[in-house]
């Protein structure tokens, strides 16, 4: 490494670059490969399971295409019955060949998996799923995905803020009332079905009090989406109940995890050393303690976040929030296989690569994990 003037500012920059350098080193690469393997296995299994159904659909598509082609008068003019039949058969065979349906089983499966991995998710029979009327599964999912992310991410941010604050306070005042509250809130977090709480919320706030609409879709429909203020209001109305539900169920777990980890950190010697140095208590807690606790907090939290993702998705169905969860519900009810497979792919993808992201963040936060350049000097 070229030597240059060390100052606090570029000490940080140096660390960031270091992480990037290390990030391409063994560990993260390894985890990324792991993630791909998982994704591949999952899609392989899914494809095998659904192969028969997908192919039936493909055959149906082929028949339709050929039928459509046969209606073209230019093509069939001047042919007799047998020749028409022959032409039909020929076109069908050509298409079968094109879609690779005549190849052996394993090759067909392989092609399907390849398609999916390359993000060609196929088509669905149901045109009503997309707002634009498209039948491409990727379009449908790409419409739903951002909405899920908006709801979920906003909720998580609120949960993190509340949970961190409560957890820190509870750790500082161990054994007090707030400690007990956090403990209890986390138990609720763990046992309360989020989607059920959603139903209760609708019952209370929609049916009884009429403060909110019972369905997010209807809220959006009723709102005036043409003006930015109107759109904002519509979105706010639609998102409030699901958001509150998410936060109520989620903050307990976060607070509890934070509390435990911070409690453990508070017993470390360097905390006492920091106080001995005359650092004000606030800086000790929010600087030293929080910073030192952040790697395990982040890891545990992302894991709990991923776990709550499933609850959140089911909640979407309850609130008819037009995201991935609701899409899952509809696809399941209607037996829409291409959409299901596509959803499986996207969800698994997000899932496994969030875990890689966790490792990256952990490396950024905890210098002990950065095995690399500096330790060799």
């Amino acid at each position, binding site marked *: 490494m070229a030597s240059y003037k060390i100052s606090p500012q570029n000490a940080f920059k140096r660390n960031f670059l270091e992480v990037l350098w290390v990030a391409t080193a063994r560990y993260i690469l390894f985890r990324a490969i*792991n*993630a791909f*393997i*998982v994704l591949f*296995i*999952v899609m392989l299994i*899914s494809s095998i*399971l*659904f192969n028969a159904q997908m192919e039936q659909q493909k055959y149906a598509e082929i028949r339709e295409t050929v039928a459509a082609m046969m209606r073209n008068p230019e093509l069939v003019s001047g042919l007799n019955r047998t020749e028409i039949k022959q032409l039909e058969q020929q076109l069908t065979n050509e298409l079968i060949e094109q879609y690779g349906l005549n190849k052996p089983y394993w090759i067909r499966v392989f092609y399907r998996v390849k398609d999916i991995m390359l993000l060609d998710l196929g088509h669905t029979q149901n045109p009503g799923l997309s707002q634009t009327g498209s039948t491409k599964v990727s379009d449908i999912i790409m419409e739903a995905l951002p909405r899920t992310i908006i709801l979920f991410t906003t909720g998580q941010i609120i949960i993190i803020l509340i949970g961190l604050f409560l957890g820190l306070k509870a750790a500082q005042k*161990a*054994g007090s009332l707030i400690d007990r509250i956090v*403990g209890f809130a986390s*138990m*609720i977090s*763990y*046992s*309360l*079905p989020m*989607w*059920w*709480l959603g*139903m*209760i919320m*609708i*019952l209370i706030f*929609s*049916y*009884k009090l009429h403060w909110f609409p*019972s369905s997010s879709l209807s809220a959006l429909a009723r709102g005036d989406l043409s003006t930015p203020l109107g759109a904002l209001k519509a979105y706010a109305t639609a998102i409030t109940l699901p958001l509150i539900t998410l936060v109520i169920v989620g903050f307990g777990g976060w607070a509890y995890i934070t509390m*435990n980890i911070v*409690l*453990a950190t508070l*017993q470390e010697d360097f905390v006492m050393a920091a106080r001995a140095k005359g650092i004000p208590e606030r800086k000790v807690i929010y600087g030293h303690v929080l910073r030192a606790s952040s790697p395990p907090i982040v890891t545990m939290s992302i894991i709990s976040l*991923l776990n709550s*993702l*499933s*609850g959140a*998705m*089911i909640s979407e*169905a*309850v609130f008819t929030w037009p995201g991935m969860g609701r899409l*899952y*519900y509809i696809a*399941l*009810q209607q*037996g829409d296989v291409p959409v*299901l*497979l596509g*959803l*499986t792919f996207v*969800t*698994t993808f997000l*899932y*496994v690569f969030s*875990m890689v992201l966790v490792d990256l963040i952990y490396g950024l936060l905890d210098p002990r994990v950065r095995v690399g350049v500096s330790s060799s000097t």
Partner: protein
Amino acid sequence: MRLDELKTRIKLFMNEFRRYKIGIVGLVLLVIFSGIAIFAPLIAPYEDYKHWNDQTYWEELPPAVPPAWVNYFSKKKAAVQYEVENPPVEYVENAHIVTVEYDFNYDIPPKDILVKIQTQPLAKPAKITIEVTRPDGLTILIYSSYDLYYGGQMFKIFLGGDMSSRNLLIEFAKQYDTEENIASIEGREVTIDVIKILFSKAEPGILVGTAPPLKGKYIFKIKIPSLVYEEVEYLKVVFKGAVYGLLGTATLKRTAVGRDLFVGIVWGTRLALLIGLSVAVISTVVGVLYGVVSAYLGGWVDEVMQRIQEIVASIPLLPILLLLSFLFKPTVWHLVTLMVIFYWTGPVKTVRSMALQIKEQPYVEAARALGASNWRIIVRYVMPQIIPYMFASIALGVPSAILTEAGVSFLLGAETATEPTWGMILSDAYLAGATISGYWWWILTPGILLTLTGLTFVFIGYALDRILSPTLKK
């Protein structure tokens, strides 16, 4: 470990456990729930449970009504379920006449009236009629069957839904109501609650349901014309309550038939506990063994086992579960197996590091020097230290399993399920619009129980966790 050593250990443990009141609460709840689960056949009839999806079986119950005890808390009293079986039959002028008296002292009328008749085969097919004398002195014909009754089979009349009774009652009501109201109901006759008409005062508003209730004695006369004295084998009149039972009723999908939620809930306890415990126990035991063995064997075996575990652990549970459930339309036991396949990865990492630590201890080295086999070391040194963690892990795994099953059931719906779980009950509720129609009893009970069952194990697990984690000991 020797027996007396074990006994003292358990005693010490119980003393520690007593310190955590929350663990005691958990234990009490566990006993209650287990009691309900074990004694389910005594509390709620198995017949009811077996016929959960049988429409005919439940025909006598009102659809989607609150529990009976609601009457204690509201000013307006709702009609309670009232059934009359085989009332006295007179034979007058070539007809069987059955008289049924009904005391209506409520504010909210019954949801429906069901009349079930079975006679011996009639010589001549008959037209069954029903007449009622109201407390206000009016006597109305409320039913005249379109189809003739031949006898021999069960004849069922749902006065609320039958065309004949509906028309008769609507015509009756039109005599007393205003032009306005009659006009307003044009074209929407199917939405009229005719039973309410029957029990309302004959004044304006009777057609649209705003007339006050007419309280008093109602005398129903059911007439079955017959030539010879053929016996009435069976007759039952059911005044379907506006409230019912301990927990209210739910509807059978897409019908107006109600089923007793109490039955579903009680028997659902069994399933919940069974699912939760089997998944938690099996997956934890498998995971613990996996971790210990992997740590113990070490070397490349350990590496491979860990990679496998990582890969399986990275697979997101819900999407796969949904996908597979969709394909196989699984029974509850399929779900259990699938969940075990995913859950076993949980304890592996922690257990493995515990086992590795123990492996390095001097007393293990000493034991090995003395010639102890691997197996003996695992059983005698490693497992006793891991078993407490295992129990805490099991306790905390149960709520997760129960909730996952409930969630999956909720999404998939309870189409063909013969054994309802709480999740399926909630699924029915949602599809029947319980949230927007205010059927709170349908939604609250299964959910509260799900949460409570989860909390039971969380309380126990929390107490166990505190006892075993030195950092949290204060």
